[in-house]
């Protein structure tokens, strides 16, 4: 939204303007480019208006500034421009400030309208100062634009040479631990002394021919010191006795659970 009006000084500053503040603004003598998008908020617009008073910001007439702002907004309204809410809020506040400044002093009022005006003035000064500071920064001899670093530096290198900490003990203990850990384990199942069922069958059958009376099963076992073998022989002989009983060659008798087991030929 752009309209033409006056005065010429009402033009949003851009960065170029602030860099070259004395740039004559010719060609726009009787024109006001009203472009609310061009201002960065009401404070920016106020600052631009204040500058048009062409006095030190510390000495501007706040009342005149308020008039200017309200007139500006009124113009925009007349042209049926959409005006962002924050501009209207500022306009309302300034209208209030204006009435306070014009009315007889009320000593009870806190803060006083003078203080409010001073605050506004201070804010404008601060914004103006920062805007100027930014422009001065940008105008400095900037690295990579005005001054340059060496184009092709050889570069510095710090070569970090590792002094590895390891001694012979570390080496051989690592080797030992690794061998112990990782050499494939070979599992050999040791041959255990057992009496097979076939052996037990033969043995029990043969001995039954000799003993016709009730005999304890243990009597059929071979004499041995090897407890393992004896257990195996007992188990096999028991199974052999069951097998022979099934074939009708042998009888088995036991009085109680876990009582001695007696056998005789049938």
């Amino acid at each position, binding site marked *: 939204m752009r309209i033409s009006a006056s005065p010429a000084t009402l033009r949003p500053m851009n960065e170029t303007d602030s860099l070259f503040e004395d740039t004559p603004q010719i060609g726009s003598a009787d024109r006001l480019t009203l472009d609310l998008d061009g201002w960065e908020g009401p404070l*920016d617009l106020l600052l631009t208006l204040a500058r048009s008073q062409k006095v030190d910001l510390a000495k501007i007439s706040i009342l005149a500034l308020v008039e200017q702002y309200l007139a500006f907004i009124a113009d925009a309204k007349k042209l049926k421009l959409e005006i962002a809410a924050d501009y209207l809020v500022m306009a309302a506040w300034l209208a209030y400030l204006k009435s306070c400044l014009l009315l007889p002093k009320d000593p009870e009022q806190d803060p006083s309208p003078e203080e409010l005006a001073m605050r506004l003035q*201070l804010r404008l000064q601060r914004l103006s100062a*920062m805007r100027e500071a930014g422009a001065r920064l940008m105008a400095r001899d900037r690295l990579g634009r005005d001054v340059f670093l060496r184009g092709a530096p050889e570069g510095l290198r710090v070569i970090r040479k590792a002094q590895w900490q390891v001694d012979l003990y570390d080496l051989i203990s690592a080797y030992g631990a690794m061998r112990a850990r990782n050499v494939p384990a070979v599992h050999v199942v040791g041959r255990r002394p057992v009496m097979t069922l076939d052996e037990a069958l033969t043995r029990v059958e043969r001995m039954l021919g000799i003993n016709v009376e009730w005999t304890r099963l243990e009597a059929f076992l071979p004499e041995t010191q090897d407890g393992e073998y004896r257990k195996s022989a007992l188990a096999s002989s028991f199974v052999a006795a069951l097998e022979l009983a099934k074939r009708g060659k042998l009888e088995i008798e036991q009085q109680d659970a876990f009582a001695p087991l007696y056998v005789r030929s049938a």
Partner: protein
Amino acid sequence: MSSGGSSAGDHGGSRGLFAELPDDLRAIEAVLFAAAEPMSVDDISEHVGAGIDVKAALAVLEAHYAGRGINLVARAKRWHFQTAADMAHLLRRERDESRKLSRAAVETLAIIAYHEPVSRAEIEAIRGVQISKGTLDVLMEAGWVRPAGRREVPGRPLTYATTADFLAHFGLESRRDLPGIDDLRAAGLLDPIDAAMEQLVLETGPEGD
């Protein structure tokens, strides 16, 4: 010899124009010339060895390079050689102006530099508008602004400050060299507005115009 009026032709005989330098100065010269990055005194010491008074040597070199096509400068306590500013016209390269900072970014940068550490809300209070999303990003991407911790007030807002690269880019030895910073401070324009108000009221009196 006087070099001011001499033409290029008569330098040939002026052997004394550059005297032989002692090795400690030569070493620092060599290291700083070769360096791809600005170097602190400690960085330099590490390269030239502990036996050299680097600080004193830098001061000598700085003075001697002052009138040359190349200057030795310190930025944020890190030293580098750079071309003299008045040679800019010979060196300025065609560069894309697309990277030109927006007005918002320039103002935001100035506010951070002069007020640091400063929160986003404080920046917005000074500018009277909200900062758009990209503005701080652009400044951080340029390497000029960094987050500088949270302020211990309700909401714990993040604050921002400038970097060593900022000082180097804008040719500032330290923040004290920011243009006009002393005047601004004296005028109370860098204080929070309430503090500034109090000062103003004291100066002009409560009934001040």
